[in-house]
């Protein structure tokens, strides 16, 4: 091994810019989010509700053509507290990265939790979205600043287990 402290390499930094084609299901979701609404899609076979939708159900391989409007409330399926800085990530640690399961949805998405001491966050805790001011809304889930506790009783985590219809 080379134990020399002399720098024996050079750094070559790269950056990438993307043009992303969202597809029809995600486009519909983002158009709704831009108006402060959350829409998902339902599988015609197993009735799973996907949010954000991707246009098909991976379980059944069929289009999820039925649109479902959801609320911006749900619960914490699980979470972690990130204590280390992540290269290229703008959020300063510690921050809470949580799997948010909206009411009526069968998959969760990652978002922040705030307005509660970190040690009080728990699996099954009820939360609701805190939206940015309307003039800042774009076609992004970042329109929601974070989720905060509603104060309602916790749900039983077992109730999140999906039962296909």
């Amino acid at each position: 091994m080379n134990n020399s402290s002399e720098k024996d390499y050079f750094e070559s930094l790269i950056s990438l810019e993307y043009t992303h084609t969202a597809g029809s299901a995600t486009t519909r979701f983002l158009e709704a989010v831009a108006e402060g609404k959350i829409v998902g899609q339902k599988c015609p076979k197993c009735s799973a509700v996907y949010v954000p939708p991707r246009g098909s159900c991976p379980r059944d391989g069929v289009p999820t053509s039925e649109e479902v409007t959801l609320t911006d409330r749900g619960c914490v399926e699980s979470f972690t507290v990130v204590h280390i800085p992540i290269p290229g990530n703008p959020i300063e640690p510690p921050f809470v990265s949580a799997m948010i399961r909206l009411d009526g949805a069968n998959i969760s998405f990652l978002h922040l939790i705030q307005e509660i001491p970190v040690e009080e966050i728990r699996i099954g805790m009820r939360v609701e979205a805190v939206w940015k001011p309307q003039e800042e809304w774009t076609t992004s889930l970042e329109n929601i600043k974070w989720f905060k506790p509603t104060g309602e009783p916790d749900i039983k985590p077992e109730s999140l287990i999906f039962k296909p219809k």
Partner: protein
Amino acid sequence: MIPAAVIGVGQTKYDSKRRDVSMPGLIREAIDRALIQAGVDWDDIDAVILGKAPDMFEGVMMPELFLADSIGAYNKPLLRVHTAGSVGGSTAIMAATHITSGQYKCVLTVSFEKQSESNATWALSPKYPYTPHINAGAGGYFAPYMREYIRRSGAPEHIGWQVAVKDRQNANLNPLAHLQIPGIDLEMVKSTPMLWEPLRYLESCPSSDGACALIIAAKDIAKGKNAAWIKGMSVRSEGTLSAGRDEVNPLAGQMCAKDVYAQAGIDNPLKEIDCAEIYVPFSWYEPMWLENLGFADKNKGWEFTDQGRTELSGDIPFNMSGGVLSSNPIGASGMIRFGEAALQVMGEAGEHQVDNAKVAMGHAYGGAAQFFAMWVVGKEI
């Protein structure tokens, strides 16, 4: 299935920065050692199967293009495999299928990662379109599932620390292991900083440079050599965002293990497998995989760890080499598991050898706990 055996296992020294070698040099170090152990030469190699994890881990796209000559693929078939963290395992299986299908007699398979060339946590934490930028590396992704495992099973906090200690004690017996931590104990692990709750620094894998190569051969080449015969092998995957997925105990992992055991004629893995190299990049995955692979009952895997049953002297030793927790060149990590399982049944595992190991398991998982690759190897054909 036409019989196939591992006849050579070559590994590099694993380290955080292998600046003494280039990427081809690192890979060649593993290949040369595998060829020497196997007692075969380049002319005997019919095909080369290469595996590595995402290209962003080095920032070199399609490295198989410039590696073709240094890995001996000149005028030979070359195939590159990618299944994220499980790739070392699935690559070994892709290579072995070239023998079991009867297509070739002797194949070289190699996998690597030279993580010091870039930053894997950065590469795993991009800003995805339309969502808040909160993803935080592999630990950030898997920590919520470990928390859910702890909730379901009621496992005490010290289980994670015990796995972290046990694997590093094993690593102290393996001169190739990246982490060498003499005197490691529970106090040391629990005093290290929290990274992604519930995971502390020493409960997480390192970022390593390294490569692992295997020579896999048909019977007429393997006969008379010290060999690890492949008794069963399988890969499975599941969709990333599918309703009903259980990432704490993934169905694809259960199915993959079931398939491998059926091929190997194993009814009771706990009794019939002597030791296992299982992909445990974060401490809590030991009890989780003990259950997923059928060694322990649901929510009881942590009791195995607590009772020392996965230690080198236990009834089902896990990660005798020190495991992913002690060396993690991601693309190679699965193949190291597969190769270390082979070394155990060949009786070539050195100081971390399990006495009289006849049947051993190698396991890898990757992506969002969605790709699985496993094999069982035996001393006898």
